[in-house]
């Protein structure tokens, strides 16, 4: 008989009762176990933070070196104990340092997968399948319309438009953590060796990736307000910027920019259109429909809990597979952006 009474939902998020610790809490707490460095999961203001060394470094870049009174770095697959609860952080394949949290207590093993993906990504450790009794999954792309193509094929489109419009600069909207570095690494893997320009907000995170041994090649920051044709011609170059910078003066300074957006949402045409995107790339750091269902099967859990996203469809599919499934309806995690 599995016993899940020791893992509860509080206002701050998932709460491991005996360990008095929260997973990705949305408010300040005493002990926080953080799955990965994206801002809606890794918030500032906790007293004690437990995470992978990479995630702790990412948080230090974002919130300053003193973002918590106590920091516990736990390497992948290293076992630790917290008030009788066995904890292991397992690679989740989402971004650098991202981890699934495996918890064992009262003869029951629960895995909170956090955000995860199964498609290839040269910038982080691949998702590791680990059997458990209860699997807690996200459902950002939890609808059968989401079937992400291989990222390598999508990157080819970037190289094609660059050849097609040699006079235009190609500006790619991508999250500063994870997506940006993944696109750079994919471009490098596709044989692109020229300097890639990045928005200032991405500089430190790119440097951090390099310090963890991820090759990104020649990068150059594009200074705000100083782009004009006399200084540096950015025609026929790739420029990466966070989605928030796309509509700003910074982007307007570029000459005839071709706006690219890389996200799982780009599969829905009218959504892509809405953002003023000229070239949508379906490159996602989340699992698509088939990968979520495949993962649920592979971990052989008898119960599935769904944190955020399109939970209705995943729960329906689990029920069809004969698995117990429920929505946790956690709030505070952004489900519309990646």
């Amino acid at each position: 008989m599995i016993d899940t009474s020791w893992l509860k939902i509080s206002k701050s998020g998932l709460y491991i009762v005996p360990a008095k610790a929260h997973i990705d809490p949305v408010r300040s707490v005493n002990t926080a176990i953080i799955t990965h460095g994206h801002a809606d999961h890794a918030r500032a203001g906790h007293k004690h933070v437990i995470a992978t060394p990479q995630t702790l470094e990412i948080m230090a870049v974002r919130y300053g070196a003193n973002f918590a009174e106590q920091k516990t770095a736990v390497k992948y697959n290293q076992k630790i104990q917290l008030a009788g609860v066995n904890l292991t952080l397992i690679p989740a394949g989402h971004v650098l340092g991202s981890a699934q949290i495996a918890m064992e207590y009262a003869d029951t093993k629960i895995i909170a997968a956090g955000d995860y993906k199964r498609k290839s990504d040269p910038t982080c450790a691949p998702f590791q399948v680990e059997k458990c009794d209860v699997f807690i999954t996200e459902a950002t792309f939890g609808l059968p319309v989401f079937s992400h193509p291989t990222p390598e094929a999508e990157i080819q489109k970037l190289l094609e438009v660059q050849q097609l419009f040699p006079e235009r600069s190609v500006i790619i909207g991508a999250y500063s953590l994870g997506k940006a570095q993944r696109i750079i690494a994919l471009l490098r893997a596709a044989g692109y060796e020229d300097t890639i320009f990045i928005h200032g907000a991405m500089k430190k995170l790119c440097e951090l990736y390099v310090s963890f041994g991820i090759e990104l090649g020649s990068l150059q920051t594009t200074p705000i307000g100083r782009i004009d044709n006399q200084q540096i011609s950015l025609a026929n170059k790739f420029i990466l910027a966070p989605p928030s910078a796309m509509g700003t003066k910074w982007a307007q300074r570029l000459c005839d920019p071709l706006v690219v957006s890389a996200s799982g949402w780009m599969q829905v045409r009218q959504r892509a259109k809405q953002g003023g995107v000229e070239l949508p790339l379906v490159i996602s750091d989340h699992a698509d429909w088939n990968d979520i269902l495949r993962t649920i099967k592979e971990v052989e859990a008898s119960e599935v809990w769904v944190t955020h996203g399109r939970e209705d469809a995943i729960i329906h599919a689990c029920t069809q597979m004969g698995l117990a499934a429920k929505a946790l309806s956690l709030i505070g995690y952004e489900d519309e952006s990646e």
Partner: protein
Amino acid sequence: MKIFADLLHSLLYAPQRLVKQAYLVEFIKNTPDPDRGYALSALTGELSIQGVKAGLIRKIAYQKCDPVLFDLSYDFVGDLAETTALIWPNTTRQVSGIRISDIISKLKTANRIDAGTLVQEWLDQLPESQRWALLKLLTGGLRVGVSARMVRLALAQSYQIDVNEIEQIWPLIEPPYLELFNWLDGKADKPDAAGRAVFRPMMLAHPLLESEIAEMDFASFQAEWKWDGARIQLVSGSDGVRIFSRSGDDISGTFPEIAKPLSWHGVIDGELLAGNPNKIGSFQQLQLRLNRKKPSVKMISETPVFMRVYDILFDNNIDVREHPLEYRREVLEAQMKTGLKTCYLDLSPILADASLANLQTWRQQCRAGGLIEGVMLKNKTSSYQAGRIKGSWFKWKRDPLTADLVILYAQRGHGKRSSFFSDFTLGAWGEGSEYDAQTLLPVAKAYSGFTDDELKKLDKFVRENIIQKFGPVREVEKTLVVEIAFDSVQYSKRHKSGIATRFPRFKAIRWDKPARDANSISDLIAMIDI
């Protein structure tokens, strides 16, 4: 199908009109007949494929995948064709070289069951982008930001001719427009409209803006009431009389009592109204008729209609469109006494003494009576041209009514709004209805009038205040008041509240106003036109 899918993809993501037009020109130049004509007719909305409707697509999608998952996906994507294209599994049986013309000719001869099988077969054979293009072609409503006008502009540009020539010919041709292309390619004579009962593009009015009033020389304008009916064009030719709607649809079958042969041949423009010239019926009565493709004898006698005529385009086959309005009016008045003298045609009167002061009064007074939306102002020297022509015709509507209502339910929009809760059901307090004064009863559904920025805020409000889900509908906390503008209020047996508002739209979001202070049913009943 690949060329068409590529065209749709390019058009959808092209940021500017001119770029879209350039893609169209390329397509017109490089695509053979009849495929190009069929593709263009899908863009102009003129392609109609019998037997393949949304219902059929949904049915075959349900057979292919779990209906629950399909519905959840459709609710999220907001577009039937796109949902089906995305959810359809890729097979290993993919083939290339399926042409639009093959698809259309096969469907033309297929019955409904065969059509379903054919569509399934094609979906199995095409990759996702072409599945999407195929389904868009079949269901219409392409939503790629291309108007029929833009297609005609692209045709004119492709062949270096004046777009007006294309406009004139357009009503004569049907998909795949071989008559047009044969003429453009120098293989045939120009299609000729003379004597044929075909639709001629209508002249439209600009709304009169407050800022323009001071500059208006009212003496040079002819003033008429703006009738609250349906704009129609009556065309009488050697092949009979046909009635066309504003968009050029042949609605002769809907109004057989008007589409009766006349000895006079020509084209007139006017408003279709319910009732008879002495006693005009309500717009609701007219709607009963508009919704019926083939009315019964009983319906025709119980809900008669007539045409209030205000312009003439052809008189006994002579084109008078280039003549000034004053001249056309004289011709029309003369014909109304002779060739057009029947009981179902009457003349829209000219309002004498159309000074600014009088116009202002008439505009506001016209609410009593309810069948007049405001006044029309038409430049006496204007010729009859297709579309909205600057400085020629103006509509000056009465001010809308307004009420403060509470948001009750929200639903995701469609197309490019599919990620936002943009369709709202709004309620008024029950006082004055047969329900409790403390309950909110739905009285309007509104999905326009807000800015993009306001839409984002409304969407956020909905997400943070959901209390229940009913399929795609979200019930929200009854706290947000919005000021809604609408054209009129009518009694309605179909609605729980007993009333219905016409063309409700957002005027302002009243973040400050407590729900308690919103209007009641009795406030709205007081606004019903006499």
